């Protein structure tokens, strides 16, 4: 993974000193609440329902075991002994004290981490494919480019006060595992006919109040020109994006109101001026960044480990886990493992400091001391030997991270919701738990297969409910918490937005509602037809009829 050089370290250290002084001046009354707010947000610090919340950046989801131990330590020393992994591959601490934030940032800086631009109206943490570098379907390893984009966006002086937040996701595979179509900018690392690496750029996707699937603005931008092209997009957005209404301030609204063609015209005109200029990325820089993501020293192994195959054949629990939580690796004899942070009864994405320490030890023992955070709020060991999977499974079971439910109905993506977040209309974690409890029969869950269920506690859509096969949105009706259900959403290259099936439900009705939706699927599905495909074929009507028929 990327390692800071003296320059990277120096400016992160300078940021810590800057924020320490800003916090001091705020606490001394020299900075007003309004003046301090954007400063603390751009350092990841929210003022939440009960306490500040600190969101720490995990750039494109990559973590070292050493960094994870620091996160565990921060959870223990400054919080209540746990952290929450988010849908943007970051980690949040829900209970730090404002006064401690500068010290926490200083501790992070010592392990090459920060909370820079994890909030605020600026370019946020770049997200990517959690199987980057190991997936067999990968065209280009996106990580060197993620790091290039991270550095370009970090402290970009011109784009720190945008109309609204700005999220970029990068994928390098045929299958999009980074939800690039629902980002302000989606980037696909591709190769042109001559084999040269470049980028397909999408713009104007996003969730929130007005969910929109992004559009391709340019099919191919070279590596040399990509930052000039981004600068052009950002400048057009910064100048012309709406600032009169925060709900209409995202780039997706600008693109929609301007039309894609007009927006593209502005971008192309600006880019024309920048082309070939100082912003061109030198080959040497790409080569430098690429070396950080060279393959680790894999052992030369046979394609399939015999002991592993035997264990799968005679251990059903292990086989279930392998089926759901183990992902094929491009290197023979290796596999990528997903640690499920979706055990029933635990808020999705939460991990205790003790668990983090153990995961760090396991990463050292099994996966070259590195791990990734997925936007589905799970953790990944990307480079595990097949022959070690059985032993690792045992360790993860003891830890509570071996729930064999990746991609299943109970692998729920869920925001912190009304239990923590001051923006939320409704709680989301108890809904997730009630649904997990209802669907506790693993055999049945396996039979149902891939179903993404996403829960957001409000319109801001941190739980990405629009792209859930089943989406749940918390709404406020006269001060009461209600839940609106949509079906048919999907992420990936065929991203689609779910359709609302009808009036919202009380929390207590939610497990029944989901069960009725699933019943229709089970009755009407074709052989081997996934839930999302059945919804696409059947439309929402049969589901709607069943859910509302017996509910009233």
């Amino acid at each position, binding site marked *: 993974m990327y390692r800071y050089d003296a320059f990277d370290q*120096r400016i992160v250290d300078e940021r810590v000193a800057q924020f320490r002084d800003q916090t001091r001046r705020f606490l001394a009354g020299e900075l007003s609440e309004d003046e301090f707010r954007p400063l603390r947000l751009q350092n990841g610090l929210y003022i939440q329902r009960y306490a500040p919340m600190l969101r720490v950046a995990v750039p494109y989801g990559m973590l070292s075991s050493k960094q994870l131990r620091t996160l565990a330590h921060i959870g223990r020393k400054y919080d209540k002994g746990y952290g929450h992994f988010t849908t943007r591959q970051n980690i949040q601490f829900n209970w730090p004290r404002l006064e401690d934030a500068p010290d926490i940032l200083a501790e992070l800086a010592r392990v090459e981490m920060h909370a820079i631009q994890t909030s605020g109206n600026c370019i946020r943490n770049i997200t990517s494919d959690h199987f980057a570098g190991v997936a067999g379907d990968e065209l280009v390893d996106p990580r060197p480019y993620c790091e290039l984009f991270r*550095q370009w966006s970090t402290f970009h002086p011109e784009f720190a006060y945008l109309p609204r937040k700005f999220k970029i996701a990068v994928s390098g595979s045929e299958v999009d595992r980074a939800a690039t179509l629902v980002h302000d900018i989606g980037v696909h690392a591709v190769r042109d006919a001559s084999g040269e690496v470049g980028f397909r750029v999408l713009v104007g996707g996003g969730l929130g109040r007005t969910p929109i699937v992004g559009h391709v603005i340019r099919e191919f931008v070279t590596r040399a020109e990509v930052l000039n092209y981004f600068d052009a997009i950002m400048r057009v957005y910064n100048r012309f994006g709406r600032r009169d209404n925060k709900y209409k301030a995202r780039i997706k609204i600008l693109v929609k109101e301007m039309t894609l063609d007009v927006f593209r015209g502005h971008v192309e005109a600006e880019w024309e001026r920048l082309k070939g200029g*100082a912003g061109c990325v030198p080959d040497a*820089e790409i080569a430098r960044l690429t070396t950080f993501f060279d393959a680790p020293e894999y052992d030369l192994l046979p394609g399939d480990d015999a002991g592993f195959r035997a264990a799968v054949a005679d251990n059903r629990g292990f086989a279930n886990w392998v089926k759901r939580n183990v992902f094929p690796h491009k290197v023979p004899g290796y596999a990528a493992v997903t640690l499920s942070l979706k055990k029933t009864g635990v808020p999705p994405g939460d991990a205790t400091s003790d668990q983090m320490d153990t995961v760090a030890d396991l990463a050292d023992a099994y996966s070259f001391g590195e791990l990734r955070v997925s936007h589905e709020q799970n953790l990944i060991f990307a480079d595990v030997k097949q022959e070690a999977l059985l032993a690792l499974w045992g360790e993860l079971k003891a830890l509570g991270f071996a729930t064999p439910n990746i991609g299943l109905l109970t692998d729920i993506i869920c925001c912190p919701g009304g239990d923590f977040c001051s923006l939320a209309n409704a709680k989301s974690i108890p809904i997730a738990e009630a649904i997990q409890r209802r669907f506790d029969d693993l055999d049945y869950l396996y039979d149902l297969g891939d179903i993404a269920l996403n829960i957001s506690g409000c319109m801001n859509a941190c739980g990405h409910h629009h792209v859930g096969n089943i989406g749940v949105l918390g709404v406020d009706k006269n001060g009461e918490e209600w839940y609106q259900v949509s079906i048919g959403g999907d992420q990936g290259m065929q991203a689609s937005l779910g359709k609302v099936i009808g009036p919202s439900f009380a929390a207590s009705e939610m497990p029944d509602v989901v069960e009725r939706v699933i019943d229709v699927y089970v009755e009407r599905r074709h052989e081997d037809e996934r839930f999302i495909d059945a919804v696409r074929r059947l439309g929402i009507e049969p589901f709607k009829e069943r859910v509302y028929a017996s509910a009233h």
Partner: protein
Amino acid sequence: MPQLIKDRAVTADTWALLRTAATLADLPENGSIIVPLQLWTQHRVTLSARGNVGVLLAPADDPAALVEDIATIPLIAVDFPQFTDGRGYSTARLLREKYAFKAELRAVGDVLRDQLYYLAASGFNAFALHADRDPQEALKAFGDFSDNYQATVAQPLPHFSRRAASTFNVHGAKGQ
């Protein structure tokens, strides 16, 4: 006389900012003045002849409107009605890089210490800080960071180009 930060030093501000001037009759007879873009475009010839007239750009104003005057205009002020409205950063960048404006580029309005570093990097060299803030104290903000990844107006080469050059030198030294 109000104070101004200019070229990283505190100095007296000798310019009168006339935000609401709508006609020539609103202007004082003498002294250096900054007038809104609209007044400037209506009376360009008269105001140019007067000399010592700067132009105030609102966040939505297109700096292209000043393209013909760019070499002669002594001062352009860019307004920040709220410091969180970041359009002025792009305005400054365009003025410096696209239109090659060389004279004083001044940030006015809701201008605060904690934005000075990015404002300077975007091309501003003068800052009319809030009257109730200590400009001497605010000078420290220019030292918040020692460098940037990106190309800035002050440092037109992005760090990666300079990093590549320095790496090359290290290797070159090794080879000798």
